[in-house]
């Protein structure tokens, strides 16, 4: 069983593309091999900035021979039919067999496809993989027409077994596959010949290349932690940065430095963001002061001076960057202390969306809406309005201009500098949240009111100008905004009728359509929490379905009860009652809804059902009024036994019309009891 080694050696591959590229290479090659009839034991993909590699172990040496029988025309069929059959099988007449069939003698063809050697298949599959490789962006270079992420220089394609290794003959746009690669660009630039994956990985290591990105990540994590520990610091964890940095080096060498004292008064978020975005530094925190006081940079080389020149250079660049940041910070603070009036003025000339006006227009709308929402979330209306008016002013600050990801965070600092109360400042920071399904949901009332107003204004506004998300296109992140509203409302138990808030946000928006959009988002959200879509449909059919808290309480209670045995049986009973009623109503052309009378009851089971309903109905009604859906569903579940017994013993459609009508009317009481809670007809099962 041979092993296969592939290496695609190129100029520097963007770090952010490497993980996907490893997966794609593995999928394209193994998929192609399997499709061609080969099997393999295991496959692993690796990458460095300059190479993508794939190692496949235990590949079958050739694909199996296949034999296929095909039935052709009858032997007495016209000549043309036979010729067509020969063409389609690629055989000659004398290679056909005549066999007896039900309808007489028929020609049979036996088509045998001989197995092919692995090398032939590998060459085809690799060439196709390279030509079809799904890079997010690819390019041409020189005079060639081949596309790759950056110029491709060499290819290793090597099959090896006990007998030795052989290069798979393959040439793509002048690049001939071989068995050689190169080591580290500076420390070991010479050509290296390899005989298989183990040899390849070992020789690369000697040539100062760590092939496995996971190993590079681990090495960086460890070295950085050690360096920090020696100074009594700790590294601020950042997995995204770690992966990126590991994709920028073949031989990681961590170097640590201290931030100059004059910059230590900058907000920690500014230090961290500036170092990360501009220089891909890790931040080191001093646990004693809680401040960020140092950094770790990861070089790609071991030098004779142990990185001294490199560290000095990086320190210099950092000082220049942080001087800029300090300059922004001081200027911004001056403006903040002066009340941020220039920023508010400046937002008048920033267009939010051409049909929805400027950012200043938007802020005015959000402020009005936050005021309306404040009483619903227990916030002070004046504070909510004030918070909404200042929450986005930092968009005009120099710092946010430089680092857009600090929006909100800077807003909080500037609001505090302006002397505004804490809840207002916190709202500036938190009103963008939650940004994703895992982002924390604000709970401070002022923050909640501004966060809701911000998102509802956006949604209602875009609905009013008919810019809704379609398919995979959602350029204004409206789905995320709706999910944000849902989570804010549910986590904080905000009791509000969305329809009314839509109208407050923008009277021109189609509120019913927007509500339907929310219901779709809610279904996705609840499905992730294990609540089935049909249960949600059953509660959406109930009145008050624009009160999400009510809706979800109902759905949760219903979902819980339907997981019990009583619940599933009850559902059957309710459905049966509903079906019998619906049939009778259609046949008789009347609606049975009133007048069931125990005096016409003929059996004990009927009488017990009357008694049970007499007891359950008011209890359910009261529970629903109190919005105690757990009690309500328990109330309806208590009907399970009498309903079962009733259907067991009683035939509804008797000849006695009085008895029949009475029983149908009794069924309608069951239906009505169910309708207090949900539209059970929509539930599956």
């Amino acid at each position, binding site marked *: 069983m041979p092993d296969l080694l592939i290496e695609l050696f190129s*100029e*520097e591959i*963007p*770090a*952010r593309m490497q993980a996907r590229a490893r997966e794609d290479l593995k999928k394209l090659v193994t998929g192609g091999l399997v499709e061609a009839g080969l099997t393999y034991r295991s496959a692993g993909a690796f990458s460095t*900035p300059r190479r993508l590699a794939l190692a496949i172990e235990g590949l079958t040496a050739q694909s199996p021979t296949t034999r296929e029988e095909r039935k052709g025309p009858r032997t007495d069929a016209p000549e043309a039919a036979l010729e067509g059959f020969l063409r389609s099988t690629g055989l000659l007449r004398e290679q056909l067999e005549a066999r007896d069939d039900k309808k007489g003698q028929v020609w049979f063809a036996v088509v045998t496809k001989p197995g092919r050697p692995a090398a032939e298949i590998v060459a085809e599959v690799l060439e196709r993989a390279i030509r079809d490789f799904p890079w997010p*962006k*690819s*390019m*041409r*270079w*020189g*005079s060639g027409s081949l596309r790759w*992420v*950056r*110029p491709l*220089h060499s290819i290793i394609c090597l099959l090896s077994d006990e007998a030795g290794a052989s290069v798979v003959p393959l040439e793509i746009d002048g690049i001939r596959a071989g068995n050689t690669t190169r080591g580290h660009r*500076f420390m070991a*630039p010479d050509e290296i010949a390899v005989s298989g994956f183990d040899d390849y990985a070992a020789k690369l290591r000697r040539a100062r290349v760590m092939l496995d990105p996971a190993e590079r990540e681990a090495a960086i994590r460890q070295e950085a932690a050690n360096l920090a520990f020696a100074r009594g610091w700790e590294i601020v964890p950042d997995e995204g940065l770690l992966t990126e940095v590991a994709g*920028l*080096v073949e031989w990681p060498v961590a170097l640590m430095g201290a931030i100059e004292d004059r910059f230590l008064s900058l907000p920690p978020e500014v230090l961290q963001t500036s170092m990360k975005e501009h*220089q891909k530094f890790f931040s080191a925190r001093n646990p004693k002061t809680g401040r960020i006081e140092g950094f770790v*940079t990861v*070089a*790609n*080389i071991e*030098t*004779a*001076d142990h990185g001294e*020149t*490199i560290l*000095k*250079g*990086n320190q*210099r*660049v*950092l000082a*220049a960057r942080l*001087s800029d940041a300090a300059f922004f910070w001081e200027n911004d603070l001056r403006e903040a202390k002066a009340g941020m009036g220039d920023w508010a003025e400046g937002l008048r*000339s*920033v*267009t939010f969306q*051409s049909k929805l006006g400027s950012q200043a227009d938007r802020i005015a709308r959000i402020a009005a809406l936050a005021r309306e929402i404040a009483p619903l979330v227990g916030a002070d209306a004046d504070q909510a309005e004030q918070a909404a008016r200042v929450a986005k002013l930092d968009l005009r600050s120099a710092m946010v201009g430089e680092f857009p990801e600090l929006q909100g965070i800077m807003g909080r600092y500037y609001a505090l500098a302006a002397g505004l109360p804490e809840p207002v400042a916190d709202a500036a920071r938190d009103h963008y949240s939650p940004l994703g399904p895992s982002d924390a949901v604000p709970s401070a009332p002022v923050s909640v009111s501004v966060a809701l107003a911000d998102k509802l204004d956006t949604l209602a506004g875009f609905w009013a100008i008919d810019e809704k998300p379609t398919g995979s296109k959602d350029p204004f992140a409206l789905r995320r905004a709706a999910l944000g509203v849902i989570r804010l409302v549910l986590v904080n138990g905000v009791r509000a009728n969305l329809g009314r808030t839509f109208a407050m946000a923008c009277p021109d928006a189609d509120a019913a359509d927007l509500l339907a959009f929310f219901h779709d988002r809610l279904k996705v959200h609840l499905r992730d929490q294990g609540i089935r879509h049909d249960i949600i449909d059953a509660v959406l059919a109930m009145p008050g379905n624009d009160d999400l808290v009510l809706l979800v309480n109902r759905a949760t209670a219903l979902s819980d009860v339907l997981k019990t045995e009583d619940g599933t049986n009850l559902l059957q009973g309710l459905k049966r009652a509903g079906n019998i009623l619906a049939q009778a109503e259609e046949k008789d052309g009347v609606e049975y809804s009133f007048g069931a009378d125990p005096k016409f009851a003929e059996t004990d089971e009927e009488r017990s059902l009357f008694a049970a309903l007499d007891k359950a109905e008011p209890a359910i009604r009261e529970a629903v009024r109190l919005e105690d859906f757990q009690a309500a569903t328990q109330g309806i579940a208590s009907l399970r036994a009498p309903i079962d017994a009733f259907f067991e013993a009683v035939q509804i459609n008797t000849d006695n019309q009085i008895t029949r009508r009475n029983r149908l009317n009794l069924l309608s009481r069951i239906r009505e009891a169910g309708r207090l809670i949900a539209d059970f007809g929509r539930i599956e099962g």
Partner: protein
Amino acid sequence: MTSPKDNQTAKPVCFQDVILRLQSYWAAQGCAVLQPYDMEVGAGTFHPATTLRSLGARPWAAAYVQPSRRPTDGRYGENPNRLQHYYQYQVIIKPSPPNLQELYLGSLAAIGLDPMIHDVRFVEDDWESPTLGAWGLGWEVWCDGMEVSQFTYFQQVGGHDCRPVSGELTYGLERLAMYVLGVEHVMDMPFNPPGSPIPLRYGDVFRQAEREYSRWNFEQADTGMLFQHFKDAEAECDRILTAAETDGAGRRIPMAHPAYDQAIKASHLFNLLDARGVISVTERQAYIGRVRALAKRCADLFVTTEAAGAAGGEAA
């Protein structure tokens, strides 16, 4: 592969030393060493030696210094790193040679950046010029965490696919030289060797001009006139492009270069207007689009000429 070490000599001592070394290095690699284009441009890419010559099939290799003007970057000569007038060093080779990265690293060694003691890295940075309708893929090159060059494989210029592809290198000369020379403020950087009979620093040469231009760019430039000049350049560009390709004597002489000059002019006028803060966010895109439309039409015309390798070019 040439080892970058081969080129190593003593470190440069002044700004002009860095420039001279780059000139002789790229001359030794076979580039035609051109002189700056004699118009106001925002970057070396605007030089027709790059924009126009990256179009068409004819091989090309050129290197030059290009004074570049970015009015919004003016800081009255006070900021240690920002200037409204600075120098770029530009190398353009078509088709891009397979060893362009090695050639580039050799140029760093030539100016005293030994890659064995520095950390030189190619970090993804795709280049796009909305005003030129151009884009390419490549990197910004980092030396010890500082961006020292832009390295781009042109894919499209003026809306035309580049076939073959040009490799473009752009060095920000002041920043690079400051790093090599260990200078903190650009104005303190020695321009000629400090031991010269009349030693001059960068500030001796440019501080006065930086102050004056900063004032003019931000406070004084006559915006009404600039708007009018923009319109004039646009109109003249259009007129040149729509003129008959055949002259009075029956010769085919399309005028891609004169038209392109007007596009460059429009681009710089837009930059000046931008610095004066009289172009709103929404108008910005429209102005950039107008310049791009001109650049594209210039490119369309240039590719029909002999300089672009079009068959029969001028004779047709």
